[in-house]
């Protein structure tokens, strides 16, 4: 049947079975390929998107469960304050290697910072350990999140 899904502020109508995971609607039906497929069972986090701001594994999120929730993907996360800071920190710290998992990592980190602007190491462990990186960029991810959590340098007028 047809579902109306709000993604990055825009409403899309898709005609798929209700149990179709959001991931495939994004990637194959709507062509938004920034969100990645890694495992299909919520073990790796490559498919992480935000559902009403919460980091969510889209590979196990049926479209019928969305009920009008607002979805944000990597394509639009730069439009949020936390997302923009995370992306900048990722570049400053040279986090990426193959880069395939990084959409999911950035989405997880952006959700963390939006909810918890000053995460401790333990908070970072909790928020990020569901996201696998086979290139092993974990150390840099941690540093980048800490950088993104710093208040932006204030320009002092004069």
């Amino acid at each position, binding site marked *: 049947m047809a579902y109306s899904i709000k993604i990055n502020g825009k409403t899309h109508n898709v005609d*798929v*079975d209700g*149990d*179709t*995971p959001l*991931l*495939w*609607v994004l*990637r*194959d*039906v709507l062509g*938004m*390929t*920034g*969100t*990645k*497929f*890694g*495992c*299909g*069972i919520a*073990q*790796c986090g*490559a498919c992480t998107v935000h559902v009403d701001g919460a980091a969510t594994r889209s590979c196990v999120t049926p479209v019928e469960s969305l009920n009008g929730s607002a979805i944000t*993907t*990597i*394509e639009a996360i*730069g439009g949020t304050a936390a997302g923009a800071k995370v*992306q900048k920190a*990722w*570049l400053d710290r*040279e*986090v*990426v*290697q*193959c*880069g*395939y*998992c*990084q*959409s999911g990592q*950035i989405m997880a980190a952006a959700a963390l910072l939006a909810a918890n602007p000053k995460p401790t190491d333990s908070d*970072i*462990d*909790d928020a*990020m*350990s*569901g*996201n*696998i*990186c*086979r*290139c*092993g*960029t*974990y*150390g*840099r*991810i*941690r540093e980048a999140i800490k950088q993104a959590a710093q208040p932006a340098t204030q320009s002092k007028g004069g």
Partner: protein
Amino acid sequence: MTDLSRRHLLRAGAAAGGGLLLSFSLPFGSQAATAFAPNAYVRVGEDGSIVLTMPYVEMGQGTYTAIPMLIAEELEVGLGQVKLEHAPPDEKTYGNPLLAGVQATGGSTAIMASWQPLRQAGAVARALLVAAAAKRWNVEPAACRAEKGEVVHPPTGRRLKYGAVAADAARLPVPKDVPLKDPKDFKLIGTPAKRLDAPAKVNGTAVYGIDVRPRGVTIATLTQSPVFGGKLKSVDDTAAKAVKGVRQIVRLDDCVAVVADHMGAAKKGLAALKIEWDDGPHARLATADVARELEQATLNAGPVAENIGDAAKALESAATKVEATYQVPFLAHATMEPMNCTVHVAKDHCEVWVGTQVAARAQAAAAKVTGLPLEKVVLHNHLIGGGFGRRLEVDGVTRAVQIAQKVDGPVKVVWTREEDIQHDMYRPYWFDRLSAGLDETGKPVAWNHRFAGSSVIARWLPPGFNNGLDPDSIEGAAKFIYGLPNKRVEYLRVEPPGIPTAFWRSVGPSHTIFVVESFMDELAAAAKQDPVAYRLALLDKTPRTKAVLTLAAEKAGWGEALPAGIGRGVSVQNVFGSHLAQVAEVEVAKDGTVRVRRVVAAIDCGIVINPDTVRAQIESATIFGISAALYGEITLKDGRVEQSNFDTYRVLRLDEAPKIEVHIVQSGDVPGGMGEPGTSAIVPAIANAIFAATGKRLRKMPIDSELLKRPA
């Protein structure tokens, strides 16, 4: 190391679009120097654009940044001015000289292979551009210089952009010898350059093979015979066909694929299939069978990889004898991007979209399945979401083309993670038998090492397998870093039935270094000597190796006291042309759980191109190796791979990742490889640290926590 500088040939000619085309030949191992064929191209357009056709593919290792740095350095352009293109499949042009001319990205070879020829290409291009400008100004070229994409004539202050003289430069004779820069004048090489591929990878716009969407593409997923070598007996697809979005079921001899509008429907359709398989001859195969066969093989002598002195005799008369056997498991690659390949088979041509480490082989695989001539197969290479050797194989291309032959229009074949893990081509299982003799002072006077396992080279590059030996299987075991008076190394090629093998990050040394560095630790323990001091005493003939070991030990605080349950372990190696020592600090909990707390690495990889990439690769390869040491194991039961996804094939996660410190030794030597050394080095460092912490020697990977449990 081959002398790379001697054999390059350069030529310039008018590029199709105007401007200067400079092509240069990488020095093939298999091609004569007189083969004047170019094999990589620098294009300087009249618009000033500089395009480099990349013979190597980016899979995370930073090659899309380091390779352009080599050219930009000599060409005197900013890194930001260089644009990159994937090389088309063309083995003659883009063959990797260090991989016998195969067009391949692997073996940590890209910088080693490109170090001279790519700088030379940049230097010659610069010289031609300078000459063209000088001619226009009617001045001596020597009075001009190049900087930031312009030719400058300092006495008059005149300037011309490269683009403005590119067409003229293309008509000039190519200078024979253009001196390369003195390393002390490097502006780019050796500085931490930003990765050129990073921006697209943080905003979701980077296009991996799995992301391509040719017009009208359908999505297929597949299931292959769960036992290698099995066949499809029957399939009931009634329920699958009823799934909304499913278009077609494709049957092959040993595989069924479901073609659908999207992967969700394809997976749902796949789950609804009722399939019967004929398991074939390997229906009962278990890992223990493979291990037993390898163990048996090592009871007999094998082809001799190295023989120094008389190790058997020296062992007999040694004061102390040490014997051990070691085993390492099959391992999956588990790249984050699951296997995928998109193919459009038309009547008289075929188009393939894939991320591959071997573009020419991928093209040839498609040609073979379709029967089309090579030139009718168009291959589009893409960013790879993790290679680690998996994309040196083209089984996924073959499979996708077989499916696409039965589908109208382009089809993207995407493997589920379960299929990806259960139909990988695995790092071989190896079994090792060692014995050593020590003299009264504890010094090793005899070293015998015999091992059995699959030779990936024998299949992947048959000419590389000679007299029962191949250079990859024995690297790190034969001709290793230590000076020993009597040494014998034998390798027996034994191919396991019913499970395919392939290269895996750090390839042969992923096995040999674990064994050699663990056994060396055993000898130090038998001699009751410090593991670092024991090794240093054997490294007089390899000063660069000795220096990294000394540095790593110093930075790690080797010898300083640690709390109970925590130990330090060391390893040192010279493989892939780089010298690396690692010290791992490991905690063993009462329940046997192992945690790597800290890793200190000291690396001498020769001249460093991009120091941040060197650090990143050590970090990356170390984490990759820790995953293998702690969790990595593919096992077979009833011919089936028992692991299926990241829940059963675990890899390291962020909360388990240690602090990794990388210390780079300044060096003027030719660059070595960096993508793989960290993986082979860390595994024995961890095992040795466990020994230091618990007194227990683990000779079989992965670590079995049961063996490390302490009474409560």
